């Protein structure tokens, strides 16, 4: 199958990206090295091509009502130009996708979804749609870049007259002029650092990419998907297909904060209410390795020789210098301090359930 290229493909080649097949997209896993890129984002800033993400627009008189019915969080509470993290569920409480919602008005929402789920999501949104809505998959119309890290604002500020301080955490500006390019810009991201996500039309993408790198100089470098994953993991941000999935509910994944069960009806609410009121048998836990080895996604977790679940994500966390993971396990072993075994290459390696061991996010201060 021919891999899809983003409009920044030439930039990845120019900057020495090691290209890989990422869910059908030809994207850079790294440029100079995952660890170096990881530390750049934590200490200075990094530039990401995330154009593979999907964008879906919902417009119409009943848009607010429909988006509220479709998603788990409190859509009606959103103000104009606010952004909100949401879970889209199946009736059984399993997850279709996690996404962020941009509100233009009660008649106009912009949804940003996971790349690999875009077609599935669009189909799901169409199937459940209320009559009279206009729903469009605009994924090909936008390039998405992320500028993340403590110096992200300082760098972008050089390219605009608009005061970036006015964009608060999880808010957006529908028209931000960056080096003469009209962009949608939100203070959001997937790294645990302050930063922005920017949407613009494809023909200006390479130009703005270069402008941002030039403005940042030594303080910024392009970041590949490898560091994107270590950054999001270390900040304990969920990844669809690992922490959440069609068979893992948001409550099991400890995302209950984004699921408003005391609010209006939404798809999956009844099942999630039953799950909450009943006895949830599995729950996500943090753990730290005690023995030698790196936990990785889908490794089995055991207690006294019996399988009690699996690792959803695990890694060497570069900024913490620790081997840690997230696991979905039987609830009875979920107390902090509980010793468990992670099965690594047929060997049981000791680990300990913990709380609060992940990277403390630097977001939200603005």
């Amino acid at each position: 199958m021919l891999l899809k290229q983003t409009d920044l493909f030439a930039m990845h080649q120019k900057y020495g990206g090691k290209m890989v097949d990422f869910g059908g997209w030809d994207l850079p896993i790294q440029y100079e090295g995952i660890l170096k890129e990881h530390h750049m984002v934590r200490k200075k800033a990094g530039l990401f091509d995330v154009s593979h993400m999907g964008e879906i627009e919902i417009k119409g008189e009943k848009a607010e009502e429909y988006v509220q019915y479709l998603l788990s969080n409190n859509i009606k509470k959103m103000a104009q130009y606010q952004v909100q993290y949401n879970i889209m569920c199946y009736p059984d409480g399993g997850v279709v996708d996690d996404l962020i919602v941009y509100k233009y008005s009660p008649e106009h929402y912009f949804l940003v979804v996971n790349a690999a789920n875009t077609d599935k999501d669009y189909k799901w949104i169409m199937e459940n749609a209320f009559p009279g809505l206009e729903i469009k998959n605009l994924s090909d119309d936008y390039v998405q870049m992320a500028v993340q890290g403590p110096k992200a604002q300082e760098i972008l500020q050089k390219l605009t007259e608009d005061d970036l301080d006015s964009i608060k955490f999880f808010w957006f500006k529908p028209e931000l002029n960056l080096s003469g390019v009209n962009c949608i810009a939100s203070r959001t991201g997937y790294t645990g650092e302050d930063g922005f996500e920017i949407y613009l039309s494809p023909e200006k993408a390479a130009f703005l990419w270069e402008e941002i790198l030039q403005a940042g100089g030594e303080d910024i470098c392009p970041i590949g998907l490898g560091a994107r994953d270590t950054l999001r993991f270390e900040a304990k941000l969920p990844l669809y297909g690992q922490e959440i999935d069609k068979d893992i509910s948001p409550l099991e994944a400890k995302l209950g904060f984004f699921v408003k069960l005391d609010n209006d009806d939404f798809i999956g609410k009844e099942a999630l209410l039953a799950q909450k009121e009943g006895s949830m048998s599995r729950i996500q836990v943090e753990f730290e390795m005690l023995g030698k080895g790196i936990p990785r996604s889908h490794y089995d977790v055991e207690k006294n020789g019996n399988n009690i679940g699996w690792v959803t994500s695990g890694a060497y966390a570069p900024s913490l210098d620790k081997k840690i993971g997230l696991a979905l396990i039987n609830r009875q072993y979920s107390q902090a301090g509980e010793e468990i075994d992670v099965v690594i290459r047929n060997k049981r390696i000791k680990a300990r359930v913990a709380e609060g061991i992940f990277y403390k996010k630097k977001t939200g201060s603005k």
Partner: protein
Amino acid sequence: MKIPKNLLYTREHEWIRVEEDKGYMGITDFAQDHLGDIVFVEIPELDSETGAGEAIAVIESVKAVSSVYSPVSGTILEVNEELEESPELLNEEPYENYIAVVSIDNAEELKQLMPADEYESFCKEQD
């Protein structure tokens, strides 16, 4: 990419430096470059027996898990324990940091390995 002349190479990108009846072995520059940042090394078990081409160690980079295969059959005489604390040494100096010392029980096996020039063309085909 560095390929020292005085070593022999495997198709799995290990090197071996023969010293009389034993060999120092590790991974090549090509291997470390393709693995990316190495963050964990499961070193071989001391005194264990290995066949040629058998997995004796595991290297984990940030993105992948890979086995390391013994170039020859023999006994693991020494292991480089420093790699447990500092796995990044394999990225920094892949030829200075051996993984294990293996006894060479059957010198005939060395004929199966590639000299530097042959390994260099082999790498070119791989890229």
